[in-house]
């Protein structure tokens, strides 16, 4: 039960800057996800919270206590590592019992706690095995078990399910979320997989090149990305981006390039004005907010050519060429169409995102 407050934290490795001026408030019992591509500083941040890395400058608080100089063993945290970090010479039972032994708990209590955790993770039958005798998923459960046997202030997860196969990963996403809700413990979860962040977290902190880009609920991040990076990083398949310019004819304001002309609504025009945006911008639209119709007589506003179609079972992706640009459209499965054939595209103008071409900042 604790809040974690990260204030003005910087991290250097020699002269390389890994984390820049980071400020995050993790609320009590919150599931916070640090999301970003590799090298974005998310793991460094987690390791500083764990006490495994020194903080170059700034402070980290657990509740009201500044923990900068507290060694990991006294921070009352539990951490799950990317490669599980099980002790190979110990059985599953001994692995789980390890943190309890350091707490000088008596034998009976240890056994009880370990059996409780093992039951929760469905590894009771494995307690006498050594880590080599476990499958990837079982190792991962053991690593989680070692974290939950005690009641730590904070759970730290460092890409715990990155090495599992896709099916098991999606299964574990549900289990982890369920576990966190049940144990009601503040959790910080590092991942590069936006899907894990979107599905599990209460809030997501998107990081890039050591800088916090956006901190918000999954809905916020998905629907109102603050810049082009966040917009492109979150969502699968990723958002489409098209270079456009703003054109004003009388009262109507539109986004124009060689292939498209989109007349903006009143709200959107107001926001363009607020940010005094003019000239070149970048338009962003998610594959779900585009529609596509095959054939010449599509009745849609924009003419395009099929580049490739990818069936996904129930849905399909259509990559279409708009002049030099290419966009991905997601729709219910229908006739496939061949590369080079004509098609028509329309956009849901309500769902448009517009970014400053220079800075990448979102205008709306």
């Amino acid at each position: 039960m604790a809040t974690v407050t990260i204030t003005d934290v910087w991290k250097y490795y020699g002269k390389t800057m890994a984390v820049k001026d980071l400020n995050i408030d993790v609320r009590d019992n919150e599931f916070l996800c640090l999301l970003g591509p590799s090298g974005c500083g998310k793991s460094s941040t987690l390791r500083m919270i764990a006490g495994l890395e020194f903080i170059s400058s700034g402070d980290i608080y657990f509740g009201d206590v500044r923990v900068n100089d507290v060694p990991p063993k006294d921070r009352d945290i539990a951490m799950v590592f990317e490669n599980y970090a099980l002790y190979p010479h110990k059985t599953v039972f001994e692995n789980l019992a390890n943190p309890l032994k350091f707490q000088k708990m008596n034998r009976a209590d240890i056994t009880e706690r370990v059996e409780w955790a093992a039951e929760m993770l469905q590894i009771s039958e494995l307690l006498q095995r050594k880590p080599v005798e476990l499958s990837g998923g079982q190792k991962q459960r053991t690593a989680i078990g070692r974290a939950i046997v005690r009641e730590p202030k904070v759970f730290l997860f460092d890409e715990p399910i990155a090495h599992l196969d896709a099916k098991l990963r999606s299964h574990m996403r549900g289990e982890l979320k369920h576990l966190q809700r049940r144990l009601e413990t503040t959790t910080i979860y590092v991942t590069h997989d936006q899907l894990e962040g979107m599905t599990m977290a209460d809030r997501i902190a998107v990081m890039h090149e050591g800088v916090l880009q956006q901190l918000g609920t999954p809905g916020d991040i998905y629907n109102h990305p603050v810049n082009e990076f966040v917009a492109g990083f979150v969502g699968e398949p990723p958002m489409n981006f098209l270079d456009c310019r703003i054109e004003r004819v009388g009262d109507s304001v539109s986004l124009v390039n060689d292939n498209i002309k989109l007349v903006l609504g009143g709200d959107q025009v107001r926001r363009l004005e607020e940010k005094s945006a003019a000239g070149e911008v970048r338009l962003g639209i998610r594959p779900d907010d585009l529609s596509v119709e095959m054939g010449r007589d599509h009745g849609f506003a924009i003419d395009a050519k099929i580049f490739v179609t990818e069936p996904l079972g129930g849905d399909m992706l259509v990559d279409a060429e708009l002049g030099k640009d290419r966009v991905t459209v997601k729709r219910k499965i229908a006739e496939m169409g061949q590369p080079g054939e004509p098609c028509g595209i329309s956009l849901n103008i309500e769902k448009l995102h517009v970014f400053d071409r220079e800075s990448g900042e979102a205008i709306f």
Partner: protein
Amino acid sequence: MAVNTIDSEPPELSAYRGVRRIDHTPHIFNNQPARYYLMWLLLPAILLLAAISLYPFVWLIYMSLHEVQLAPGKSDLWAGIDNFTRLFSDKSFARGWVTLFKYSALCLSVEITLGVLVAVILNNSRLEKLFITIFLMPMMMAPVVAGFLYMFLYNGTFGWYFWLLRSLGVLDGGSILGNKTWAMAGVVATDVWQWTPLIALITLAGLKRVPQEQLEANMVDGAGPLRNFFSVALPNLYPFLLIAILLRFMDNFRFIDTILIMTGGGPANATKILPTYLFDVSFKFFELGRGAAIAFTLLLLTILLGLALTKIFEDPTRKIKTSGTE
């Protein structure tokens, strides 16, 4: 279905019905072309090895079963197992073993303790490379030279160590190598000086392979540095320590250079380990048959002890090796 859950999980995923399986392996996978040419490539090495190690071994057995005659023209006399049975009543033989075990145990325990300590101190320090280079020097020295060096250092007239020990009041009188207790300590110290660096080097290599994540996980679990070393680093070092111990104990069982130079087995047989006794029997008394019998027992016990050691360390070794790779 419930039985399945242990090995393939999560349970729900393995519970699909109607999975198609093919229960026989097509024959093409069994018909690997035989690679006979590999044998020809290996043959020269096998022959060379046979010539330099198998041939002497056969001779050793031959000699141990004969009364070997040195005078030209005389043929060896068949002795059966006489050479071996006589060893049972040979007090020097038994004492040789006891001294050898004492010597080897002393050397090993001091070398392992010191070597691991040095490796831990050196690991990740800035001067690591420099110190490794310095430490390697004694190891590069021929054991005979090390023997001479220490003999001079212990010398009662001009030896530094002798002077040092006398000045500190540790040594009352007499000489180091002339005193029964001190002589053993003296030869052990020489071995320790020369071979601790090897242990340190092997341990250092092992320390680099201790998974960082395990150490960190243990720290998060609540371990301080000392506990972390004993509960995570040390078990991960077992395979490396096994190599070090094997190497050193086998060396102890066959190297006689330093002892021969320093004490020749004396005073009063205090440092007469079995190999030195073997040297005396074979090359001072020229009883080559009996010498061969002693050598054979030495070889046999070295092999048995080697196997026993591997067995002791085997379990953790296997498990650490395979689990580290994933």
